Each structure stands twice: as C-alpha cells, then as structure tokens.
C-alpha cells in the first residue's frame, strides 16, 4: 500500500490513474451488484441492447433496480419509470453541489458534463481526497471511469449469462459500500464542529428511512445535518464576537 500512499503525482494522468486504482476494491462490489441487476433485467424482459443502453446512459444502480420493478414489455409505464428515476437520483444533485471547487476553472457546460460519472461511491471517494486537501477532477473521472466500466460490463455479463447468481449480501458485499462510506466519513473529520451535523444527519436519516420508502433519507439527512452544522457554526461565531 505504501506505493499507493507515497506515489501521488500531481499531473492529471497520475490523478486519473490514482482515482481508478483506489476505486478497485469498491468496483468489485459494484460489479457484483451489476451481475445481479443483469440477471434480473433478463427476467424482466430487457434485451441486451436495452441493458447496454440503460447502463451506459443512465448509469445509476438504485434507479435501474426500481425501473426493472416497473418494466412491463409491451405497455411500459414510461412516465412512472422516468419520474421514479428522478426521485431516486435526486440525491446526486446534493453530491455534485459539493464538487464546485474541483471544476471552478472550467466553463459551466464542461463543468456540467464532467458530472456525468458521479455516483454515490465515486463522489464519496473523491470527497475523501478533498477532505485531505487533495482531490481533483481527474481523480473523480478516474474512479468514475472504472465504476462505469465495472457497471456496464457486469450488467451485460449478468444479462448474457443469465444463470442464477448468488446474492452479493451472502458474502457481505452489500456492506462494502457502508464500510467505505463510514471510513470516508471518519476521514472528513475536522473537529468538534462536525459532531452536530453528523448526529443530526444520522438521526434525521434513520427517522426518514423508517417512515418514507426510497432514497429520501439521504436527501433529508444531508440537508438537515448540514443546515444544523451551518447553524451551530453561525451561533458560535456570533458568541465569539459578542
């Protein structure tokens, strides 16, 4: 691992490769879920072309799983699928909103385009770097490229092979995402001022997850926790002045 931690080039190509290399363990879990999705896609009646098109253009796992649930060939509920996709993926807007420093040097259209590969995992890995004072757009794109290839290849394999594939949670692979997010959360720790937003976010997310189906807990927890953090910071600043 020392080679990885010491060899941190500053060039864009080095950053791209570093992002891809550090993403390898997460990509294994992404691929495991991609295989499962591909198998389910076959059962839902998606053709190989439809799988390639959806994984290649949408590239958002959670919403693709929900789309399969609604997929009824011959009379597709187009509106319902598109709307539920938007609702499930709304959390990505909260994530790309935090990536502003990485693309500050780009014109808006290129900055917008460069967000195409943002997923929960690639965003989290990049924020982990940003928290350490590193993190570049090339790093985001490197992790994103590997994530994209892993998802596209695995979903196609699952669709083509189509045979029974074990549930990834049997091997604990579902926890790979939680463990990564948890470690990255610790990595962003800057001091006691982080405690308020984390606790408020966790409680709000737990309550929302219990009450509302879908991915709303990420949005509610993310907004409530960060608002609480900003509020606590502002109150403390006022008190320090007064």
């Amino acid at each position, binding site marked *: 691992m020392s080679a990885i931690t010491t060899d941190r080039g500053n060039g864009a190509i080095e950053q791209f490769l570093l992002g891809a290399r550090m993403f390898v363990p997460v990509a294994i879990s992404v691929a495991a879920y991609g295989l499962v999705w591909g198998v389910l896609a076959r059962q839902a009646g998606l053709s190989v072309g439809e799988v390639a098109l959806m994984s290649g253009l949408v590239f958002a796992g959670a919403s693709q799983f929900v789309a399969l649930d609604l997929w009824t060939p011959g009379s597709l509920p187009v509106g319902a699928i598109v709307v539920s996709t938007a609702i499930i993926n709304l959390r990505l807007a909260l994530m790309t909103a935090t990536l502003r420093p990485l693309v500050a040097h780009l014109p808006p259209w290129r*900055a917008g385009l460069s967000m195409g590969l943002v997923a929960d995992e690639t965003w989290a890995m990049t924020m982990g770097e940003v928290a350490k004072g590193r993190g570049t757009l090339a790093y985001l794109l490197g992790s994103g490229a590997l994530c994209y290839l892993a998802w596209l290849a695995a979903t196609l394999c699952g669709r083509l092979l189509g045979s029974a594939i074990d549930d990834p949670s049997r091997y604990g692979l579902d926890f*790979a995402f*939680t463990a990564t997010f948890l470690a990255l959360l610790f990595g962003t720790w800057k001091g006691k001022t982080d405690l308020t937003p984390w606790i408020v976010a966790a409680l709000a997310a737990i309550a929302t997850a219990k009450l509302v189906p879908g991915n709303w807990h*990420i949005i509610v927890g993310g907004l409530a926790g960060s608002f609480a953090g900003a509020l606590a910071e502002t109150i403390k600043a006022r008190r320090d002045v007064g």
Partner: protein
Amino acid sequence: MSVESLVTILGMALVTFAIRAGGLLLANRLPQTGFIAAWLRHIPGAVLASLVAPAVIAGGPAEVIAAAATALAYLPTRNLFAAMAAGVGTVFLVRMLLGA
C-alpha cells in the same frame, strides 16, 4: 428495441444527467461566503452520515458489529481498503455465526 423502451431509457438518462449537472450548476450560483456557504461545506459529512446510519441501524447486530470493526480498522491505519475488508469480513462471519 421498441420505441417505447428507447423513449423510457432516454428519459431516464436525461433526468439523471440533468440532476447530476444541475446540482453543480445550482451550487455555482450560490454565495461563496456566509451561511449558505457554511451549509454547503457541511453537506459531504451529513450525506455520508445519512448513507451509513440507516444501513447500520436497520441492519441488526451483524451490521453494528461490522461498523465497529470498520472503525477499528480505519482509525489507526487510515487505510480505506483495510476498513472495507474488515467490514465485509466481519459482516460475513457474524451473519454466518448468527445464521442470518
């Protein structure tokens, strides 16, 4: 491929890309100092906490023990891979032991 599925997939792709680009472009228009900036600054930690907390709490004992193992592996080493391996390995073992 039917026109219907093509339209559906393109619609999914379009809204998802609009959300990805929209979050960033919206943030670009927000002030870079003051309360809103502080709010934006706290979003990463809050989103990560929101991803983790329900998964651990709703999971049960295996997930709680594995989260502790992840923390124990990460905090002294600061190594992401070690943390992930500890978490996945622990959740696998505890689920097997508990027969879950």
